């Protein structure tokens, strides 16, 4: 899978996170994985269909998820209740919709599905593509793993 299919997600992250009040957006490591990915904490999955077919999975630790939900809701979140999960799903939706707009500009129109949010330790996630591209993105001290798999 070509790295160019991941840059719209990174660019969307750079656009969206400052709107939520995060100042410092940086990129950590990027890698390709052929095996399944393992996530602990909160994972949000969104399907993508159009000129590209695949999935994107956003992974946050439990602490990062609570912190992001607190920022989005403007109040301290102690436990991830329905409202905070709704906020996190909405964040994944905004990030993916932003990437979809950038794909459109690249001549690759895509539509996105509704997000599904999962919680649990050591969840194994396998996507149908041969390779998953993983990028660690930071908004201040919050790390979000973005895992992208397209079928070509």
């Amino acid at each position, binding site marked *: 899978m070509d790295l160019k299919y991941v840059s719209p997600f990174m660019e969307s992250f750079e656009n969206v996170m400052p709107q939520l009040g995060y100042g410092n957006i940086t990129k950590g490591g990027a890698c390709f994985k052929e095996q399944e990915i393992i996530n602990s904490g909160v994972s949000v*999955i969104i399907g993508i*269909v159009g000129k590209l077919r695949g999935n994107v999975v956003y992974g946050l630790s439990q602490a990062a998820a609570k912190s992001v939900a607190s920022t989005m809701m403007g109040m301290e979140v102690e436990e991830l209740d329905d409202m905070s999960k709704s906020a996190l*799903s909405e964040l994944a939706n905004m990030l993916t919709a932003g990437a979809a707009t950038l794909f459109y500009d690249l001549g690759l129109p895509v539509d996105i599905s509704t997000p*599904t949010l999962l919680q649990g330790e050591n969840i194994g996630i396998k996507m149908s593509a041969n390779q998953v591209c993983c990028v660690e993105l930071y908004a201040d001290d919050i790390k979000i793993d973005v895992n992208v798999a397209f079928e070509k």
Partner: protein
Amino acid sequence: MDEIKIVIVDDSSFSIAFLRDIFERNGLKVVGEAGTLEEVVSVVKETKPTLVTMDMTLPGTDGLECTRAIHQIDENIKVIVVSSMMDDEIVNEAKKNKVSAYVQKPVDEDELMTAIRRVMAADELFAFLESEYLPVFKEALMDSLNRMTKTVPTSEKVFVSGSEFKSEGITSIIGIIGKFSGRMLLDMSADTADNLVKAILKREPKSMDETIAVIGEFANIISGNACSILNGKNKALGLRVAPPAMLHGDSILISAPNFTTKSVAAETAFGLIWLNAGFQRGEEKWT
């Protein structure tokens, strides 16, 4: 179309009379009018309209604040902005505030009526999908099970799910895209998956990877068949499926926080299989 009840929000009596004439000529019923935030709230509560036309500039408030107030009363009420102002920024703000369509003044009767018909048709189409999808997904599950394993479930139950449930161990998630977006998931324990895959392959699976790949394909076939049948019933749905994402773990909690989903629990020869699906009303695609 069922009877459409309209409330007109505008601070100009000329505009109200002009819009009222258009609606009455087209057989729509105007049930109220308002020019301030307080009037909007009381008229909407009292008359429960299907649709509200909204001016953007109003004394002491604006169209977006009024739209939010209306959706706090009932989020299903459609708001169409009818305003002399129309630029990218204001249209984007309107979209963010869940406005269904935007028509610029001076109002062209055909343009306004087309916008209303489009908004109401989308509503009817969603209602159709909501009433049809679960039986179709259930049938696709039964049919795929029958064709791939020559068995039928011993019992199946259908129910509306809460926003959250715990995975039995292995879950396939398939995103659905079209006029409305949604997702299907198929959930079962590792033992059930093992038994099912043995029956499908007619041999022992070589590895956990193979088991997961077969279950993913099984879920893919069910969702693809179900969406094809739904598209056949109404081609405006245009449903398409994303490839399956496969998850496994000891205690996975799955949520769909922003929409209701429905489930089928099928007791099969291989163990319990859960199918859960749901669609979101989502944002209108503006023309």
